């Protein structure tokens, strides 16, 4: 019989007691199941499939009018511009929807099936539980949903232009894309601590993704304090164009602040949760 004294007790900072083990468990749910490769296949196809179509299918290039070609300088620049728009504007929206769907069940599912109760009956703090979920879901989102498609998109753009696509602008745009995606990841996780119905999480998050830009069109100031202008900002940045003054960089700052607010609110709410 192995006595407890023969084993090394876990030593972790009290506030995040249990984080390491929970993080391993959450990561394992991503990386040691089929989940990782399904996402590694789906997202490059979704985000880069349309981009490849734009860049390499001649019939699409033939649809361009002379005026459109003249506005960008030449046919290749026009095609590149269309590709960038599709990747960053459509792609960002698709990513946000994907992230909401992937993360809407992360907390609610475990609360409803009793797993959260069981895990929190171990020497684990509520903060550790939530932060482990957040960190373990953040990494695959960054790698599989953003990094992999972005690398592929950069390659496609470089192949089509015949030279390396300007990396700095592209990376800035990917940064904006990442921020937009994190906003919805953190929003869905936070809503999971406030609501016990998936419908509430989905309707609020997806309402923002799809209805937000429309609402922002009617009430312009909203675009400055929400992530709704980020797809346009990303697209303009990748194209090497400056962001209109009326939009500016406030949406970026506001979105970053919202991300922090969501994490703090989720931690505060979950600390007082009862199971």
């Amino acid at each position, binding site marked *: *019989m*192995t*006595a*407890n004294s*023969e*084993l*090394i*007790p*876990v*030593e972790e900072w*009290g506030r995040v*007691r*249990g984080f*390491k*083990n929970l993080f*391993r*468990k959450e990561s*394992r*749910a991503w990386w*040691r*199941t089929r989940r990782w490769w399904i996402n590694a296949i789906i997202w490059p196809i979704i985000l880069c499939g349309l981009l490849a179509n734009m860049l390499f299918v001649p019939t699409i290039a033939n649809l361009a009018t002379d005026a459109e070609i003249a506005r960008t300088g030449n046919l290749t620049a026009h095609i590149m511009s269309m590709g960038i728009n599709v990747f960053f504007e459509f792609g960002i929206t698709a990513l946000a929807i994907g992230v909401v769907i992937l993360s809407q069940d992360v907390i609610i599912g475990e609360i409803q*099936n*009793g*797993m959260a*109760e*069981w895990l*929190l*009956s*171990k*020497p*684990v*703090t509520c903060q550790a539980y939530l932060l482990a979920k957040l960190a373990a879901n953040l990494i695959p989102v960054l790698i599989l949903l953003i990094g992999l498609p972005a690398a592929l998109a950069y390659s496609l753009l470089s192949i089509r232009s015949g030279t390396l696509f300007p990396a700095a602008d592209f990376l800035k745009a990917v940064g904006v894309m990442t921020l937009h995606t994190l906003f919805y990841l953190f929003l869905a996780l936070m809503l999971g601590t406030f609501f016990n119905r998936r419908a509430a999480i989905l309707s609020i998050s997806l309402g923002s993704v799809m209805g937000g830009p429309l609402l922002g069109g009617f009430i312009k100031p909203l675009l400055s304090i929400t992530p709704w202008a980020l797809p346009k900002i990303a697209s303009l940045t990748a194209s090497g164009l400056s962001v209109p003054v009326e939009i500016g960089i406030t949406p970026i700052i506001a979105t970053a602040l919202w991300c922090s607010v969501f994490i703090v609110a989720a931690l505060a709410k979950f600390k*007082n949760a*009862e*199971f």
Partner: protein
Amino acid sequence: MPSMTNYVIQTRGLSKTFGEVSALKSVDLEVPKNSIFGFLGPNGAGKTTLMKILLGLTKPTNGQGSIFSHDIVKESVAIRERIGYLPQHPRFIDYMTARENLEFTTRFFFSGPDSKIRGRCEEMLELVGLHDKANRPIKNFSGGEKQRLGIALAQINYPDLLILDEPASALDPLGRQDVLDVMARLREHTTIFYSTHILDDVQRASDTVAILNQGHIVASGPIENILKGKEGTVYTISVKGSQETVEQNLSQLPWVTYTTRTQQNGSCTWQVGVSDETTAEASLLRHLLSDPDAVVTDFSRKKYELEEIFMKIVKGDEYDC
């Protein structure tokens, strides 16, 4: 709250309300060290709520409690270091095998060495008889196997206190027996606090009992005290012949507190309550046998079944222990 080292769990005036509903009403509880403490009550009595409060999963509305002299609200993580918990419906990580679930759970308590952690998991698999199924997906486990695995997970850190919520209620008689056997094996190492509504299991396995009804503790103490019933010691005596002389004889004994009789098939059955158990044990039968007009055909001390006591308490709430 004063620390009493003889008690693992102590609560004072613990209450919990959910909106308008009072789930627990001023619960005072003391669970002695190294006991198997059966926590009884009908469905909805508040058993699970109390267990969740003890584990820090729910906060009490009023009152206080301690486990190992640690406050149940402020020092919950320190308490959970020394506790094992089996929920009513055990949950497992379904993409892991039984062995992987055990290893994962062990790592909440210990970081290494890996060989010792694996050794601990093997011990637990042996304890609950699942060694041959350790690498099988959990989705293929039967209810009894899941319950045994749940106990192994609860016991993985060799806790000083095991809290089991209805550990055998969903099982068939064989599965229940398995679980009771495992509990019996664990009793020398740990205190077991378990809830159930299967009274037969409690009578077989527990040494101390508390009965919760509508949020109140209505009886608690060693099981033999509970089983005595509130009437104290009662003898059941069957007598043929003259019942009048029996009645006369009994009425002369100062330690006989009450008598009742029922007639059946020419024989009469007497229930005789006594206040002095030792004297009654020594002389009641002798006294009755000395009567030439009456023939004693049966003489025994009345034994209550826990079910009888439980029903009296839960239906009448008239019990006072």
